[in-house]
């Protein structure tokens, strides 16, 4: 049976399903109980499953992750909510030095089936630390899987898969798309995490993105049609590992690659994708892969986020660039 759900409700439905299917699944976080989380993703779950399984924790992210690890040692499958992207850093040591290393450290003896939910990204006019995109830190960390959903159906299926996985998974939720609605088949058998998806087929340019910018990329592809350009849009879904087979197949066809994400450009996911695709299909590339990203500045105040965030026009400008058409950098050279 299928329902019209917002992305946030779809995640909630996935959590409810996971709690119902496996009594070792636990939710932990700040304000996820009676309040249902600041984005109401866990709304009603404490009432339904009780405070032992939907746990409000004291205000300490390192401890939330650290105790989740202890619970996983004990055989539980904790699903942790980090309230906003910018609040994950106090837990960085427990995630990077513990969670990501435990299976390797113990020669496979200890599994860490922990899912970390992180509402991420900007565009909501919020204050400092509430609009960040820290995914690249985790994608560079061995032992962690990193995914991001872009629509209600994937949100529902991917959160269930993430919880089912015996590996730790960072689950990045595009907060500015929480209210986007879509049809969700609640019986759909989720596919294992790791595969990207071609969401718009095209012939001239491959446009790769994930999370909040998938919708923007789809709009860009539609706009490009009017200029007679056929853009293929790929929703990565999995950021670590990246499904390079799918991206490579597309680029072998189009010969041109544009990557867009909100995170700062230097060392962002776009760098890895550009480098790997250049390595995998150098001789098929008609132009250098282009990145349309946030700038190398801290995420700015609300009144400046319009400048910071990649948008349809900046994406189309990069499309023109890989097509060798006139673009903002035609004739430009560094001063």
């Amino acid at each position: 049976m299928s329902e019209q759900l917002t992305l946030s409700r779809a995640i909630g439905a996935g959590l409810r399903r996971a709690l119902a299917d496996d009594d070792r699944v636990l939710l932990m976080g700040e304000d996820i109980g009676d309040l249902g989380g600041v984005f109401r993703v866990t709304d009603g779950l404490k009432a339904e499953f009780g405070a032992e399984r939907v746990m409000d924790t004291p205000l300490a992210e390192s401890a939330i992750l650290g105790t989740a690890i202890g619970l996983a040692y004990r055989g539980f499958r904790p699903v942790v909510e980090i309230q906003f992207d910018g609040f994950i850093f106090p837990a960085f040591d427990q995630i990077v030095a513990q969670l990501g290393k435990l299976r390797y450290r113990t020669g496979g003896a200890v599994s860490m089936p922990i899912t970390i939910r992180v509402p991420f990204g900007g565009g909501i006019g919020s204050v400092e630390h509430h609009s960040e995109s820290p995914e690249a830190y985790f994608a560079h960390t061995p032992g962690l899987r990193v995914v991001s959903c872009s629509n209600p159906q994937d949100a529902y299926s991917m959160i269930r898969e993430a919880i089912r996985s015996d590996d730790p998974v960072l689950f990045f939720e595009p907060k500015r798309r929480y209210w986007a609605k879509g049809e969700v088949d609640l019986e759909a058998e989720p596919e294992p995490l790791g595969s990207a998806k071609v969401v718009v087929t095209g012939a001239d340019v491959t446009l790769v993105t994930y999370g909040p910018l998938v919708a923007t990329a789809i709009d860009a592809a539609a706009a490009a049609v009017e200029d007679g350009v056929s853009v293929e849009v790929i929703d990565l879904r999995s950021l670590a590992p990246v499904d390079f087979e799918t991206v490579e197949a597309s680029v072998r066809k189009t010969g041109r690659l544009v990557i867009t994400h909100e995170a700062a450009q230097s060392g962002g996911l776009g760098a890895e994708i550009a480098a790997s695709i250049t390595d995998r299909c150098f001789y098929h590339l008609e132009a250098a892969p282009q990145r349309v990203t946030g700038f190398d500045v801290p995420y700015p105040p609300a009144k400046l986020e319009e400048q910071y965030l990649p948008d349809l026009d900046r994406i189309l400008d990069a499309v023109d660039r890989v097509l060798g058409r006139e673009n903002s950098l035609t004739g430009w050279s560094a001063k």
Partner: protein
Amino acid sequence: MRTEAALDSPRENADMNEWPEPREELVQILTPDGERLEQPLYDRWISDIDADALVALLEDLTVVRRIDVEATALQRQGELGLWPPLLGQEASQIGSARALREDDFVFTSYRENAVAYCRGVQLGDLVKVWRGTAFSGWNPFDVGMATPQVIIGAQTLHATGYAMGCKKDGVDSVAVAYFGDGATSQGDVNEAMIFAASFNAPVIFFCQNNHWAISEPVGLQAVRPIADRAPGFGIPSMRVDGNDVLAVMAATRIALDRARSGGGPTFIEAVTYRMGPHTTSDDPSKYEDRASHEEWAAKDPILRLTQYLEGEGILTDEVRAAVKSKADDVAREFRAECIGMANPEPMTVFDNVFAEPHSALDRQKQQFAAYLSYVEGSTR
């Protein structure tokens, strides 16, 4: 192994019982109904607070509440993106901030707008952050107050380091860290107490226990009074009625005096209550029980000072009128400065990341400038 003694209380089993019972009682000078209590240990620290000083405090309390109410209205009208009300916490903030010296330095969280007001922050600057035009409303060095901290607890370490620096510089300035009850669960706050104790830093840990961390009651963070923690770290603490502006001021002056005279850190728990939502986007009806709300409404900090001043015959009609018109003026000016605020120029998104030139960022800046003029050109 289990033994027959298993169910004895451990306190009978071992010397775990030398610790005092939780310190529930509060230092109080003004009762909720405006009666003034004798508190020899504290009274001597506010002996200079005469009628004029009391009226000044009433004015402060009234003005900051008015600013708060106005800010909430501005948010409702779409002029602010968000606002964290301090409603109910006026006495904790005014009583402590008015005890400070200009050369002291304050590191707060986001809710301490009354502290900012006392430090001399311009009215419009109070809301730049909430209107989204900047991340800092003011230059910290102009007012001796750091940019309010959003990462819970992080500022307590900054305050401790600043205090270590005051000691190195041989000055008797004091650093004050303001934070909430929820913040006490963060490692940073505990590490701050450890460093402060080890380096005997002149810092005051001023915790406003407003009973809530968004939707989480203080009982989830601490199973006994928060003020009971500091002594274990070697930091003396006081637990005061946070809705009693005189008790808060006396306690703060004691702590400041200790710090200035080489006594090191002090911890103050000001027990108060968050009468408003966590922020304008919060909905307390999902978690707050009305009973405790009503209970605390009766303990209102302004109400009790008003009653006391009435009783003392200090609160004449002129005084009342003066306070009201001051609040009106401030509210008007505040609103005007907020609404009149200019938005930042697009290219400033690149400014003040580094002190020195940065090749990667400069390139991005140049390219974005090229992009903007290109777009302009093509849309012209």
